[in-house]
Structures are given as C-alpha cells and as structure tokens.
C-alpha cells in the first residue's frame, strides 16, 4: 500500500493534514483529513465572568471573530434572560452584514475565483489573486481591496477594532450610531450592492458561460448527497443573525426545525482518536460513519446548505439570483459542492441589500442600546450562522454570572465529516490506476476542500510567488518511494 501525505494543508483556516492511502493498483483506498490542533476554549472559559466571553471566544477565530462575538453575545443575553432593544438588535445585525461582506468578498476573489478565472490547470504560481488581477486588471483588484476595507471600517466603527470587536454587552451594545455615521454606511451599502452584482457577473462570465466549468460543477467528482442545515427567519428565508435552525434531508424534506435552546436534542458530536476535531451529526439519525446519502447522520452547514433549507432569500435582488441558481442546477436541494461558491455570492448580495435596509431603518440611530438586567443569571444558548456554518454557544453560570461550563459547536466543525468525504471522493475520482499525479490533479483535489472554506479566504492566494507543494508517496512502513513537486 502506498501513502500520500500532504502536510500541512495550506490555504485553510488553522492547521490540517491529509493522508491518502493507495492500494497496489494505484487507486485510492482511503483518505484521512486530520486536524492537528486544539486549544480547549470550552475549558478555559470556566471561571470567567460571562460578560467577558463575547471578547474571549472571538479569539477562537481571527477571520470570523464577529460570528463568535455575536453567538456569544446572544448566549450571554439568554444567561441574563433578556432581549436587547430593537436598535441594539438591528445594530448587531448591521455589523454582522458587514462581517459577511468582508469574508465573502475575500473568499471569492482571493480563493475561489483564481481556480475558475485562470482555470484549475493554470500554473500554480499564477493561480492566485495576483494572477487573477493580471488577467482581469488591477482596477478590479483595487476595487476588491477597497470594498473589503469599507466592510472592515464599518465593523471597526461599531466594535472598536475591525477584528476583535467589543460591541456586545449583556442585553445590548456599547455604542450607537450617529446620523452622520449612518449616512456614510448607507453610501457604502449602496456600493456593496453594486459590487455584489458585479461579482455575480464575473461568476457568470467566467464560470457559467464556460461549458467545461458547468460540466465540472455538475458532473465532476464534487457531489455528496448530504442533509442540509441553516438558520431561517419566521418566513423560512435565509437569515444569518437570528431565527431557527432548519435541517432538510437529501431530498429537501424538513427533518427538524429547532430553537437554540433545543440544539442538544438534534445535534451530537462523534470523536475519532486520529483528529483533534470532533464530528457533529444529526442525533436522531445517529453516527453511521463516513457515508453520504439519506441514511447518513452527516450534514453540511455551508452557503449552499443555507440556501437548500430556505424557501428563498429575504431581499429582492438576491431572490432573483437564488431562483436562477436552482433553475440552472436542476432544482433544490443541490448537492454539488462547487455550487457553494455560487451560493456564497448570492449571500454576498443578500448581505449588501440587508445592510442597506438596516442602515436606512429609522431605529438604527436610536439611543436605547441596552435592556435592563433583572434576572439572576443561569444558562443560555446563542446561535448565529457563521460564514462557514451554524455556530452554537452554550453557557452555564453560577448565580453571580461566573461561567461554570461552556459548550461550543463551531461553524467549520459541522462540516468536518463532509470535508473528509469530499476530499476522498475527489481523490478517488481523480487518481486512478496509472494516473499521473500532476499539479492540476492536486489542485482539483484541493478544490473539493476549498469550496467549504470561506474563512481564511481573506488572506489566501493574496500574494504572488511560487506556490510549490510537495507530495510524498511512502510505503506503508514509511519508506519514501516518490516525491512529486509542483510549482
């Protein structure tokens, strides 16, 4: 048996490693995706005053800190048994839309687009944001950087700093918006709507108008039939900040719809000794192993799953794009992994439209920013949609509000089993007996993974230079048989 090790996996949020085992015929026998890191936030949140958790747990991820800040802020509200006043809630959601715009923009341009605009087989040294700018022009590159900067500026305004924000306080927010600040946000939001439409146009020009890519998306080794998870509002439309978690099965039938406080009835986590990252699954189905299909307990929580579970988008322009996507893909739910990129752009447009709505809302400049706290603190759950999946924070405190226990299920963790299977399926589809493992083949295996990973997109591919990757093929006892270098 031969063994291919890729260590570390690069261009991902955090650390990762892939082990591919080939049988004697040179076909893929099995693949392991391992996460080699653990920090243990659940443990060291214990003993901290609960109001410190929105800032502490934001440090779980420096790319989507706003998601943890929001899920934590909502869990803390619940611990104190309060609902923030309307202005505070809307300010949080407004901030959150800017957070999505920063992340989704960076992901599409820095990470996803090079594979399509330049092509999966483009030389590795060109297949990055700089190669992309060379192809589409520096003007567009500068525009992308500017739009992302605007999104960062809105977050910094409301949260003190663009990354580690301090916006939330139990029952509300620490800072309001002046009329002047609001006017500036309205202008930026109008720009974001145009920019999101422009991004969809780029997707159309370079991907949808290219038969080869459409075929790759729909018929390539990139589809998995999984259940879908996502947050929906009262009308079953996509919402990132608030609502209920809806899960639909591989056929699109609703399996459950739960409130944050009920999550333990629906989601559980499996442990494997070869990875530090746990594997969530649907509790009522149970852990059936790394299999896809209707009988599996594995689900995904991604831009595509969010659109799969919803009856539509809550804003008009995004709704048009939503219908268009499903018409092209042949209906709902869609199971083609690469369509996650498309769904992400539709979410970008939704975020921009929603940000504009919120900025124009008369409540947004209100001065009632915090609810009165009365109840003795106890237990609370907060759920939001992070860019890369449903995010759950659950805290227990003593009567003084000191944390006694914390449980956190992070966005990307939801997709751990799905990512393992997607990598395996791509590797099996692409490496056959006698296949020459070229740079393009390696990149196409990576594309299976990349579709899930919006998080570290911000920095990914953003720099020029050689992007070599070394693949070592070893015998089962570790002897180096072959080394393939690309770049």
């Amino acid at each position, binding site marked *: 048996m031969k063994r291919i090790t890729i260590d570390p996996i690069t261009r991902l949020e955090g650390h990762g490693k892939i082990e591919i085992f080939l049988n004697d015929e040179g076909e893929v026998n099995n693949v392991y995706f391992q996460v080699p890191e653990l920090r243990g936030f659940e443990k060291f949140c214990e003993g901290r005053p609960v*109001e410190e958790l929105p800032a502490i747990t934001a440090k779980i991820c420096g790319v989507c800190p706003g998601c943890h800040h929001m899920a934590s802020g909502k869990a803390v509200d619940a611990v104190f048994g309060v609902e923030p006043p309307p202005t505070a809630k809307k300010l949080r959601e407004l901030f959150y839309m800017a957070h999505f715009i920063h992340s989704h923009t960076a992901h599409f341009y820095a990470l996803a687009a090079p594979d399509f605009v330049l092509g999966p087989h483009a030389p590795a040294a060109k297949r990055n944001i700089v190669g992309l700018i060379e192809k589409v022009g520096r003007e567009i590159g500068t525009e992308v950087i500017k739009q992302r900067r605007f999104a960062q500026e809105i977050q910094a305004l409301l949260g003190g700093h663009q990354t580690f924000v301090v916006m939330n306080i139990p029952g509300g927010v620490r800072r309001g918006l002046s009329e002047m600040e609001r006017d500036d946000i309205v202008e930026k939001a109008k720009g974001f709507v145009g920019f999101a439409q422009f991004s969809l146009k780029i997707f159309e020009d370079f991907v949808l108008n290219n038969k080869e890519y459409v075929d790759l998306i729909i018929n390539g080794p990139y589809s998995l039939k999984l259940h879908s998870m996502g947050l929906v509002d009262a009308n079953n439309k996509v919402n990132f900040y608030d609502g209920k978690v809806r899960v639909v099965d591989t056929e699109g039938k609703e399996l459950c719809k739960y409130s944050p406080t009920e999550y333990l009835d629906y989601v559980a986590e499996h442990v494997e000794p070869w990875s530090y990252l746990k594997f969530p699954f649907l509790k009522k189905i149970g852990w059936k192993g790394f299999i896809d299909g209707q009988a599996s307990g594995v689900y995904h929580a991604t831009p595509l799953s969010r659109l799969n579970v919803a009856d539509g988008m809550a804003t008009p322009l995004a709704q048009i794009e939503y219908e268009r996507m499903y018409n092209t893909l042949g209906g709902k739910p869609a199971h083609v992994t690469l369509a996650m990129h498309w769904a992400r752009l539709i979410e970008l447009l939704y975020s921009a439209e929603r940000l504009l709505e919120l900025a124009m809302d008369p409540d947004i400049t209100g001065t009632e920013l915090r609810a009165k706290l009365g109840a003795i603190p106890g237990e609370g759950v907060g759920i939001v949609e992070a860019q890369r999946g449903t995010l759950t924070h659950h805290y227990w405190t003593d009567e003084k509000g000191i944390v006694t226990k914390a449980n956190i299920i992070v966005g990307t963790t939801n997709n751990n089993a799905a990512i393992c299977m997607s990598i395996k399926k791509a590797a099996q589809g692409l490496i056959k007996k006698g296949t020459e493992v070229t740079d393009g083949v390696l990149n196409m295996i990576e594309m299976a993974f990349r579709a899930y990973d919006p998080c570290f997109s911000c920095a990914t591919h953003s720099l020029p230079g050689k992007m070599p990757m070394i693949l070592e093929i070893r015998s089962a006892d570790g002897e180096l048989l072959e080394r393939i270098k690309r770049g």
Partner: protein
Amino acid sequence: MEKSNPKLKLAVYWASACGGCCVSVLDVHEKLYDILSAADLVFWPIALDTKYHDVEEMPDKNIDITLFNGAVRNSENEKMARLLREKSKILVAYGSCAHLGGIPGLANFSTKEDILRRIYSECESVINPEGKTPLPEFEVDEGILDIPEFYNDVRALSQVTDVDYFIPGCPPQTERLLEVFNLIVAGAELPPKGSVIGAENKTQCDECIRKRTENKRIKKFYRPWEINDDGVTCFLEQGVLCMGPVTRAGCGYRCIKGNAPCRGCYGPLTGVTDPGAKMMAAIAGVVDEKDPEEIRKILDDVVDPAGLFYRFSLPVSLIRRKIE
C-alpha cells in the same frame, strides 16, 4: 536601476493561533502593493502552498524576517518555532500569543487531562461511549496516523527559543506593523535585541481618550453591565476594572473607542515583572478608603482577578499555572 537592494524575504507563521494576526497583515489594504514591491513572501501557510519540507530545505538564516504568531501549545508548534529560528535572521514574536501566551494561555489554569476530558467526554453534545481521545499515534487499517502531542502547558515563543523582537497586540495594530516594516526596508538601525517594537513605552492611561479627574475615588467595583457608562469618564473612576494602568500603549485605544475597558493585550511595560501585583496596587489606589480591612472588602468585589490580570499573559507570569 533603482533595484540596488535585493528584496527582503519575509515569512509569516502561525502556531497555536486564531488567524487574527494574519488578518492584521492583510488589513494593510491598498498598501499590500507596496509590501509586495519590497518583499517576497517565502512562507505563509494561510496564503501560500509552501510546505514544511520547503522550509527545512532552506539554508540557515535564509529568511530575513519571520513574523511568528500564536502560542506554543503542541509538539508541532515547538518544532516549527525551533526550525524558523534556525532559518531566520530576525525572529519576531508577533501578537499577544507569541509574545505572552495570549488567550490560549488561559488554558494553563487547567491541566491537559482536564481539557481533554471536558472536550471529548464531558461536553454535553458529545456521544463517546468508548471514551475515545485523540492520540499522537493511532493505528488504522491502512497504517499509523499521527497528530502532534498536546502539551500540558502553553508557552510563549521566547520560552521555547531565542526571540529578536516582540510586536505586541491581539492582534497588533496594522499601522504599527507598517511603521516597523518601513523602517526595516529603509535600512534604519534596529533597536537592541529583545526590544518590544511597534508599541510605546508608556501606559494606556498616559494618553487615554477618556477623562480623568485624578481625585475621584470609588467605594465599590462594578461589572461592566452594572453601570451606565457615560462614554467619557475613565472606567476605573466609574468603578469598572480597566487594565489601562499597567498596559503598554500603541493599540490606538480600540477597545476604549468601542466603549469597553482595556483587557491588557499589549502587555506590561518593559521592566514590569508582575502586572498582576502592579494592577492590584493601581486599583487599591482608586479606592476611597483608608482602613485596610475595608479596602480588602472592596477588593473582594473584583471577580476572577487572576483571569483578568493575566488575561493575555498567564504563561509568562510569575504564577504561570493554576495554584492547586
């Protein structure tokens, strides 16, 4: 030709980190073009596909500057810290985790066993009847799979290898990074080895944007949600604990601008060995009481003092660990 100087070789590596330090590099926004004209990035896992082998194969001191972020939490982090020390002319501990241990350093209040038990057995969503725990080596049907060893203690970079400079902050303020970068590109003389750079040698309080009356004294400490912050007055004078008196300036008062008290991510000033003791003295100084017994009672209102005073610095502090 204007290119008389060869381009700098720059590396950015994350150990036990969140990625926020890497994002702080990306937040140079349009200035990215300037950086790329002066430097080649040779290793940056978040953005480039350079693998560990490529670094191992580099000659010693091949990289001009490495910005090392993240704490040392496991065997892989330690190995990379030592490797990058060998390969770099200048090794910079970038950000609170590499500088002081950072937020992940709070794990030193617990033991390795406590953490693994909580995460893989006790967490309410875990179903693990066989009691599986991740292992450094595990045999599957196809062979042996390995993952790094999770250490009992979180350490800062300087506790593992020799560090040239420290750039503090969670994350470092991007403007400060650019200042340092521009100085290096201009060939300016660098400060003595071991210096904290990209920050100031005064406290947050020295130039705080909030107002202080100097003579205001308080009788009780409050949690942030127990007061109606006026948005203007010094937090300590409103009775809310703020780490400003013992924290280095340079962050741009970002938490203060967001109406939240400082939590100390820029770390203590040079020469301060125990910020906790110094903070205790600072807060005792604002208490409106002379009787030591009464002072003690007022200070009892301070919840989780260790978790606050050492929020970002437990691994490098004198207490270092949970006191049994």
